[in-house]
């Protein structure tokens, strides 16, 4: 993966996201129940969906890494999970804001989706200390992949268990008794979802390019000062870097 196409991708992301938000604020009708505060739905829900898909994709990349032994899949898995954790913070913050606006509390325990998401988020937050605690690079990559697969399998189970345990009062925006989302809302939501997905892909790509570059730099530095000490920093390496292939 290289930096090519990054410019196009970023432009497309900005355009789609702008279009989505323009539709949300200028065109889509106000929600009958919740009014203006329902608009956060177009930010919160796409972020959550993209983050969860990213977590599961990280698991798939972990699986591919174990199958093939190719380090690039491990790096992909790491970056997917990393960007999804960042999105996860945004999901929790927007979720809390929405809960405060709708129900008057920052945190609502009987709301299964928010609680499940918090559990998933906490689990994936342990990915960093776990990865960091293993020194051997190959073992680190393998164990991180095992973590990604285990956690990926955990995501749907967790959502099921939490949902079963709670009374379902989460705003059912898609399936209300009146028959679901009006067409205009659905369209705006789809555009926002696509835009958020593109944003995720762009950030992943930037991160991967950054890793590749820093990998090349440290390799060049090693070649320059080839005094047998290895050059680049040894400690503090949470993140995997891409060796040039």
């Amino acid at each position: 993966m290289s930096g090519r196409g990054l410019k196009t991708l970023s432009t497309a992301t900005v355009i789609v996201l702008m279009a989505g938000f323009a539709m949300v604020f200028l065109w889509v009708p106000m929600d009958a129940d919740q009014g203006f505060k329902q608009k956060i739905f177009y930010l919160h829900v796409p972020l959550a969906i993209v983050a969860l898909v990213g977590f599961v994709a990280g698991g798939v990349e972990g699986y591919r890494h174990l199958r093939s032994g190719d380090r690039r899949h491990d790096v992909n898995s790491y970056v997917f999970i990393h960007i999804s954790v960042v999105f996860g913070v945004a999901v929790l913050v927007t979720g809390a804001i929405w809960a405060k606006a709708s129900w008057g509390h920052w945190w609502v325990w009987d709301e299964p989706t928010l609680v499940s998401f918090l559990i998933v988020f906490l689990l994936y937050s342990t990915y960093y200390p776990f990865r960091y605690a293993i020194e051997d690079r190959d073992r680190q990559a393998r164990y991180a992949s095992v973590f990604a697969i285990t956690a990926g399998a955990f995501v749907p189970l967790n959502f099921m268990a939490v949902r079963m345990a709670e009374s379902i009062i989460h705003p059912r925006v898609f399936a209300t008794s009146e028959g679901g989302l009006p067409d205009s809302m659905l369209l705006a939501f789809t555009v926002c979802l696509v835009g958020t997905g593109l944003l995720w892909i762009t950030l992943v790509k930037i991160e991967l390019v950054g890793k590749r570059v820093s990998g090349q730099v440290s390799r060049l530095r090693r070649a320059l000062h080839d005094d047998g000490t290895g050059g680049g920093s040894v400690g503090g390496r949470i993140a995997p870097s891409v060796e040039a292939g």
Partner: protein
Amino acid sequence: MTPSRSAFAVLLAKDLRTELRTMRSLPAMILFAVTTFIIFRYGLDRTTLSGSLAGGVLWTTLLFAGILGINRVFVSELEEGGFDAIRLAPVDRTVLFASKASALFIYFAVLEAIIVPVFAMFFLPDWSALIPLTLLLAGANLGFAVLGTLISSMAVNSRARDLLVPLLLLPLVVPLMIAVTAASAGLFDAAGPDYEGFGTWLLVVGLYDGVFLLVGYAVFDFLLED
């Protein structure tokens, strides 16, 4: 007996014999659990418990006591070279996973055989819930054992083993805890055991066990490679 099965029997017998001789895990788990009951008695300021409170106290205590055992389950293999031995032996490496999970399952069963009666003596006015509770305990033990083995084998090779096991394990067992506490809340009902939803929750426990058995079976090989 196939080679795998005899290797499994040998490994499991070795673990149980080591535990019998050294008593490294079980006594600590039991003491920890009893002390935790006392802390709950004063923390909650109750002398009897029923419903979801009883379930919560029992399962929280078992979970934390279990983590003590899970923390230690691979330590001796690391220190005494058991990992290298299993890598050299011409048997399927999943045998180690199966034997460790079985050992943990047995530790938990022994722990519960002692701790659950103590819990009943301390807090329960009515003991009729204990028989259906064994079903839940068996299901939960399987889940804890499988996941504990997986997490412990991941964490044992890291620098922060004691920190990582609870950190990784707690979020992963949340669904299991939801299922068992919800099921036992009915069992511990003040008006006698109430079986509403018990079967469904038992199914959830079974599904959870099944998923992580499969995951553990699929990935454990990679944790032993070197």
